[in-house]
């Protein structure tokens, strides 16, 4: 595919007896929102971990933006424009919301071997933090340490940090988890807006959101991609219904 931003070829990853990725191939086109769904333990998070470099695959190949990144360390991939959010909230508890986001911004402003100037008064960083904070609706909590945020607020921050660095691709691992019903609606709005700016790979169990947002969907079962296609195709796929969706077919397209 010519306009493929991220291309994964026959990835394999095994944890002892568990084959978490089995000959997994995946193409994410530039600008699309690609959803990755599948039962619990199917290997979605493991796939994301391999994409962003936290786990190294046993075999296979990953190409991002024309470069082979299969064995590249995680921070290099992030610098190339790959950002992720974690399924299990992973923010800096002792730092405030603002500082959390500043760090995310800083990561993309060249190196941080600057020992003298106050980070907080760095206009470049400051200017980027405000919109990031606004996007996830945390302005009113700017100076609260992340530890005192509620679970849902932490989830918002989690997504905010992934966004702050203006990445080329966003790997979102269950961003809806923990968002209240209201938050979910807002998050959907946010992702809809983001779709126009950035390529997104979305792992999610909220089928309403997935079918509303995704351009294409890949279904993973036992580490293997069993189907890939438009939401319409996936919804009709008998295998997918049996393995994953059950009768919970989203009513609204």
């Amino acid at each position, binding site marked *: 595919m010519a306009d493929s931003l991220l291309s994964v070829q026959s990835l394999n990853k095994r944890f002892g007896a568990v084959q978490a990725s089995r000959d997994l191939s995946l193409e994410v086109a530039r600008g699309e929102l690609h959803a990755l769904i599948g039962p619990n333990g199917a290997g979605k998070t493991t796939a994301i971990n391999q994409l962003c470099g936290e786990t190294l695959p046993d075999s296979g190949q990953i190409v991002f933006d024309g470069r082979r990144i299969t064995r590249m360390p995680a921070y290099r991939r992030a610098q190339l424009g790959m950002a992720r959010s974690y399924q299990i909230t992973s923010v800096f508890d002792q730092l405030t919301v603002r500082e959390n986001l500043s760090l995310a911004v800083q990561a993309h402003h060249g190196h941080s071997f600057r020992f003298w100037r106050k980070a907080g008064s760095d206009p470049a960083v400051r200017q980027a933090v405000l919109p990031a904070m606004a996007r996830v609706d945390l302005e009113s909590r700017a100076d609260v340490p992340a530890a*005192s945020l509620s679970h849902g607020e932490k989830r918002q921050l989690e997504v905010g940090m992934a966004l702050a660095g203006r990445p080329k691709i966003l790997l979102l691992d269950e961003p809806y*988890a*923990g968002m209240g019903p209201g938050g979910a*609606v807002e998050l959907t709005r946010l992702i809809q807006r983001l779709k126009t700016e950035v390529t997104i790979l979305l792992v999610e169990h909220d089928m309403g959101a997935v079918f509303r947002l995704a351009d294409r969907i890949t279904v993973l079962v036992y580490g293997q991609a069993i189907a890939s296609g438009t939401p319409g195709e996936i919804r009709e796929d008998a295998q997918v219904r049996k393995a994953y969706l059950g009768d919970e077919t989203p009513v609204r397209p």
Partner: protein
Amino acid sequence: MLEVDQIETVYGKSQVLFGVSMTVREGEVVTLLGRNGMGKSTTVRSIMGLTPIRRGRIVFDGRAIDRLPAYAIARLGIGLVPEGRQIFPNLTVRENMVATAANRQNAKSPYTLDDVLSIFPRLADRLNHYGNQLSGGEQQMLAVVRALMTNPRLLILDEATEGLAPLVRKEIWQALAMLKANGHAILVIDKNLDALMKLAERHCIMENGRVVWRGNSVELAGDDALRARYLGV
């Protein structure tokens, strides 16, 4: 069975609950609803004795429990599925299940390992994995199982379906319905309004540390403005 009366709770200097009251009766399913950060989980933590309350009273089965340590409250028969899973990372799946298992209320047919594994077969072939090696969803299942294995009379679920695949989520709702049918009381926090309205008879909506609305499923379903105002849907 459970009576929460005007409780106030603080974290350090910031007050989070401002006089929350609610009740759960024998065999009843009650929900706590509200946007993020409104104090639902804090209410649960207060009930469990994980965060001490500053004012108010909590009574379980006619006994004041608001000064008891968490383990004593749990032993009275309250089971918790906490927010964010909180499984024991350094125990295997099997150990997670049996380490705290108990039948203190002498339930006639206590849960056994086989029972819970039949609800979540996915866990069966993970028994010797450590908690931190599980996928997010698997951890969530484990958290539910762990609470069930204490054979509680009141089960508290704080976002227990977070991160579960649709099929599994359905399983959980079915399991809860079954529990309810067996006379268990349940206090549940979840974002799946549709499922909640089917399962629960009474709902409490919280905002900024207060319960601002109480009612039954019919009332909640019928009031779009209410849902839009407090839940954002």
